[in-house]
């Protein structure tokens, strides 16, 4: 309920409004977002968004790069959970060339993707805490994100923009050190995360601050193309992992947490609960890890082992072909989507049989749901608008492609 409701239109028009530039580089917006707000005192009357500040023309670049070089572009979409983007792209290409990868590789991918989802949600929820004045939770949670990045580093050598995995599987098997680190994480993290949950989930000050702000109904959320935790917070249990399972997600038991009102509090709680569900999935994958190879037999896409390159003619030829991107792919068009940190991350690929995609379009969840932002903040206070944005988890890289 805002204060306009009991005033006539004439009265509102008589009032003088202030125009306020929120961003592009505002410390409270965690990325480059500009909103030109029309303010009546502390109340937001209207908002006009400007986006595209870090547009990097990925779709154009992708039309000139061989398939295995596009993975690095996907890293930079939602850089809070790059492994999910990488895997999504690998799976799209695998689907196009018709390769079934071994069960073991699928389970390893699931572990990596769920770790990435946890780190994505940790950042988002920690930042919701910061924006409502609770810096403590942020500093505690970031040490856990650090542990996840240590695991990624152990798997692939990189931390943030991971470029993890290959078309056709993973670059190498998990080492003993990786298993040790994941087990340590599974053992220690729940305790630390419970501390954070205790700090905020039922905290009266926090709940009063975030409940009923930035709400959106399920119907509007669907119309605005919401997916992921933001849609589930509004009460729609759409999850790509369950609707169209990929990478053996059908083997795992997990729940889809949903909210009721779609407000900032619901989004926070849905993400909190999803972290617990992700932990469940990782435990199951670790316990039931199948034996076998971690890559499929696709020599035209998957780099051969280095020792073979030095000693075998065939491996040398394939190595050259993969590195130079001289592999032909079948013609066709394909859409594949994965459940990213923010929702349905889709890849629409048209291939004309050449070395690079003819057309590649990324369905970027942030880009699509961020257009609902003005509607969500109209009539609310400026400080609530900041919280709404951080709880939506709009990532600038994903927004601007």
């Amino acid at each position, binding site marked *: 309920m805002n204060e306009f409701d009991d005033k006539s239109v004439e009265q509102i028009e008589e009032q003088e409004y202030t125009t306020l530039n929120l961003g592009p580089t505002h410390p409270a917006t965690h990325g480059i977002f500009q909103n030109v707000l029309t303010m009546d005192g502390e109340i937001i009357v209207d908002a006009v968004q400007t*986006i*595209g500040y870090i*547009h990097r*023309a990925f*779709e*154009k*670049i992708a*039309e*000139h790069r061989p398939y295995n070089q596009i993975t690095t572009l996907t890293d930079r979409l939602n850089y809070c959970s790059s492994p999910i983007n990488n895997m999504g792209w690998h799976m799209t290409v695998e*689907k*196009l060339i018709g390769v079934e990868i071994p069960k073991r590789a699928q389970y390893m991918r699931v572990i990596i993707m769920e770790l990435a989802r946890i780190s994505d949600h940790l950042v988002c929820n920690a930042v919701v805490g910061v924006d409502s004045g609770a810096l403590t939770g942020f500093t505690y949670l970031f040490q856990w994100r650090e542990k996840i990045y240590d695991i990624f580093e152990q798997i692939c050598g990189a931390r943030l923009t991971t470029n993890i995995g290959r078309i056709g599987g993973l670059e190498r098997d998990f080492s003993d050190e990786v298993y040790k680190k994941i087990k340590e994480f599974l053992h220690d993290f729940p305790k630390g995360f419970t501390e954070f949950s205790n700090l905020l989930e039922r905290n009266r000050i926090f709940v009063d601050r975030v409940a009923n702000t930035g709400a959106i109904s399920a119907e*509007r959320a*669907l*119309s*605005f*193309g919401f997916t992921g935790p933001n849609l589930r917070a509004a009460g*729609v249990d*759409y999850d790509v992992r369950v*609707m*169209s399972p990929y990478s053996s997600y059908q083997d795992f038991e997990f729940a889809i947490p949903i909210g009721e009102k779609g407000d900032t509090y619901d989004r926070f709680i849905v993400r909190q609960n999803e972290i617990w569900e992700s932990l469940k999935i990782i435990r199951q994958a670790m316990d039931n890890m199948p034996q076998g190879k971690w890559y499929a037999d696709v020599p035209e896409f998957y780099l051969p082992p280095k020792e073979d390159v030095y000693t075998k003619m065939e491996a040398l030829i394939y190595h050259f072909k993969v590195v130079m991107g001289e592999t032909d792919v079948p013609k*066709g*068009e*394909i*859409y594949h*989507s994965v459940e990213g940190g923010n929702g*349905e991350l*889709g890849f*629409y690929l*048209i291939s004309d049989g050449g070395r690079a995609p*003819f*057309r590649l*379009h990324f*369905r970027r969840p942030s*880009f*699509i*749901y*961020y*257009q*609902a932002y003005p509607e969500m903040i109209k009539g609310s206070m400026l400080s609530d608008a900041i919280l709404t944005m951080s709880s939506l988890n709009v990532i600038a890289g994903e927004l*601007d*492609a």
Partner: protein
Amino acid sequence: MSELTNVYIAEKLRNQFGGAILSASEPYDMLTIVVNPSIAHGVINWLKNDAEIKIQFLTDVCGAQFPEIEGQEFCVIYHLHSLTNNIRIRIKSFLPASNPIIATVTDLFESANWQERETYDFYGIIFEGHPNLTRILNVDEMDYFPLRKEFPLEDGTRTDKEDKYFGR
């Protein structure tokens, strides 16, 4: 109620729209319908309101360009999703380069707003009836549509990136 297979949906659409449905195929199991641009809005509206198929969700709108197909240079691709039946449908509409105009679907799905602006921004496809068809990711002053195939990846007038400096 018969089972909602791709063949059944395609047949249902053919009965409804007749010859304006140009083709139906299933690349990688996704029903792909090519429709006449004049009825693209009508087909999506019909799919949305059909009691059986119940498309509630517009997953994606994007454009593509096929410079070598005369009279069908541009293409608008809609990905629709029925969350209750878990069916995805792809609607494609080819437009001529001389007149790349198609009706907007912003009146059916709010999410089409920015996605159509993005398509306009990169391909110059005009969405008739769109509330605010302006550039979205590129600067307003840009006077070309960068994803069109006639534009090379890098600016051809640049002299600091000539091949000879890199020994090529």
